[in-house]
């Protein structure tokens, strides 16, 4: 096995809501190796972005409680003071944000924004910096670098902006990259380009990547391993081929069947009943997905569900996967009223 880059141990991120702390990320453990893409998938509200922001330490410290460990290069990021954390963030730990329209500063030129992390983490002369920026722009597939260097974000298309965001994250050669929905805001051909670009960059830089996404297509194309997240927990972890060939957890199977896939031509898409529970109302003792598959008998679930290793490297939470089937009649979906 390749060298471990990032090790998350029993991470719990709780937010203060009216005086009480509620865990949005609830006991997550994950190891990312060098040159490995680990995808974290789930619906919005499942805690995947909260997890990303916990790793990089961008939660508001006043309202957030972080427990557990996030080890990068032998240091626990959670226990570091901000000054030390700032020496790591943007250097060893890069972040690609979801929305390139808002992640960039509209008042600064592209060149200025790519130089910013370099100013902070490396001591480079003005000309060396500019050279590095142009090099980065070329790496991320921008052809007329010298022109783009002087442009402002609003002058660029979405795909270009995302390339700039990626260039910024790569500026200081990170060992670990966190990409939070890097292709969500882009359209297909650009998405394909950015995916291919990230695969290419991963090969060059050797860094580990945590890819956060809700798009299983992106997962199938990019990930080496996949962790499916629901209500703050991982419900299934497997390598990418296993997950798509043999998905076990009811949530994974429901997600896969709700995609308007390009192979099947079903009239009706599968809709997962109900909504992702809010962290305040979550029943933390039982199977968290149980309320959304009410046709499965309660006996199928276990108390305090654990991740079971069903085959080497394939983990599934709770025992309900053994009895899971899709509902025969989907009449209840029709009458279902969201509140």
């Amino acid at each position, binding site marked *: 096995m390749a060298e471990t880059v990032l090790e998350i141990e029993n991470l719990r991120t709780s937010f203060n809501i009216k005086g009480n702390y509620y865990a949005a990320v609830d006991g997550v453990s994950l190891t990312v190796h060098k040159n490995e893409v680990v995808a974290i998938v789930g*619906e919005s509200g499942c805690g995947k972005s909260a997890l990303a922001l916990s790793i990089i330490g961008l939660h508001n410290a006043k309202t957030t409680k972080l427990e557990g460990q996030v080890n990068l290069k032998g240091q626990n990021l959670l226990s570091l003071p901000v000054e030390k954390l700032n020496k790591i963030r943007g250097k060893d730990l890069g972040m690609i944000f979801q929305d390139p329209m808002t992640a960039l500063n509209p008042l600064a030129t592209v060149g200025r924004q790519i130089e910013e992390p370099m100013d902070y983490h490396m001591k480079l002369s003005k000309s060396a910096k500019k050279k590095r920026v142009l090099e980065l722009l070329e790496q991320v597939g921008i052809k007329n670098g010298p022109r783009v260097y002087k442009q402002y974000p609003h002058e660029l298309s979405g795909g270009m902006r995302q390339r700039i965001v990626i260039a910024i994250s790569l500026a200081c050669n990170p060992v670990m990259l966190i990409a939070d929905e890097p292709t969500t805001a882009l359209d297909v051909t*650009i998405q394909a380009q950015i995916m291919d670009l990230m695969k290419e960059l991963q090969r060059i830089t050797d860094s580990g990547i945590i890819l956060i996404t809700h798009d299983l297509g992106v997962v199938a194309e990019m990930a080496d391993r996949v962790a499916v997240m629901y209500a703050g927990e991982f419900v299934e972890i497997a390598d990418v081929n296993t997950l798509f060939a043999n998905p076990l957890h009811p949530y994974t199977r429901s997600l896969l069947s*709700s995609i308007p896939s390009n192979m099947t031509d079903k009239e009706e898409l599968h809709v997962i009943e109900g909504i992702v529970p809010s962290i305040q109302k979550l029943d933390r003792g039982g199977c968290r997905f149980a309320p959304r598959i009410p046709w499965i008998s309660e006996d199928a679930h276990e108390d305090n569900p654990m991740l079971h290793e069903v085959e080497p490297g394939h983990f599934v939470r709770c025992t309900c996967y053994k009895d899971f089937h899709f509902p025969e009649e989907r009449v209840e979906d029709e009458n279902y009223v969201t509140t």
Partner: protein
Amino acid sequence: MSLLNVKDLQVHFPIRGGFFRRVVDQVRAVDGVNFELEPGETYGLVGESGCGKTTTGRAIIGLNKATGGEVLFNGENLATMNGHDRKKHIRDIQMIFQDPYSSLNGRKNVLNIIAEPLRNFERLSPKEELTRVQNMIERVGLSPESIYKYPHQFSGGQRQRIGIARALMLNPKLIIADEPVSALDVSVQAQVLNFMREIQKDFGLTYLFISHDLGVIKHICDRIGIMYKGRFVEEGTAEDVYTNPQHLYTKRLIAAIPEMDPVKRFEKMELREQINVAYRTEYDSYFDKDGRMFDLKPLTPTHSVAVHQGGM
């Protein structure tokens, strides 16, 4: 008669520069687009951002001014009408916007949001208005008390339902849906797509479905037009376009759909690579000498491609 007939639609934006900010050039956002929509069908406009698909939709509804061509809705040309005449026809065309987070006014409650089209077109007493809104809100699957809530109190899928409710309020004939599900999660997307299908039957709607997501387009659309640089490159039934793409650009778009089988991802990457090579070498043969795309040539009665007269 077709419900909507777009003939040689052009939307050009002036580029100003030099002395006195004179018009020095034009951006040809939409440059000669032709298509027809039959009542009850779902027509998909696909393309990358910047290809003019949204501008086409906006020009049909009048949010952008068409600089040339005709937009015949029920036989009447909306493009050249003045505001007063337009108003009689325009209530039959409604729009669903992309981002349910920014297309709803955060300072208005749901009642005021959904009642707005009614207030623009009909004079109703507050009580009648309330009944209509309540009926609609139930129809789109939201709870009755939610009409006094504000957009931020809803999830993305629910907000999109509010947007749809607003569009349905005047019983329109044509709905222009501009990327209605691209801001949503897969399972919520499935919900909204199923729902849009359902109301299409119930309200007898015709959809102009604008999207970049070819998976969604394939799922929901009967016919598809592929746009590139303000013009159509290919038009056909979903089957034509997906199983037998003819234009290089269409092939490229279809190759860009993420492969759902991780085992085949390298094959897909190679296919993309091949098409990219073809794209670089053959690119010029798909344009005339002015750098403009050819007009659509029918291949079969349902399938047309923008290639040179002599074929490929």
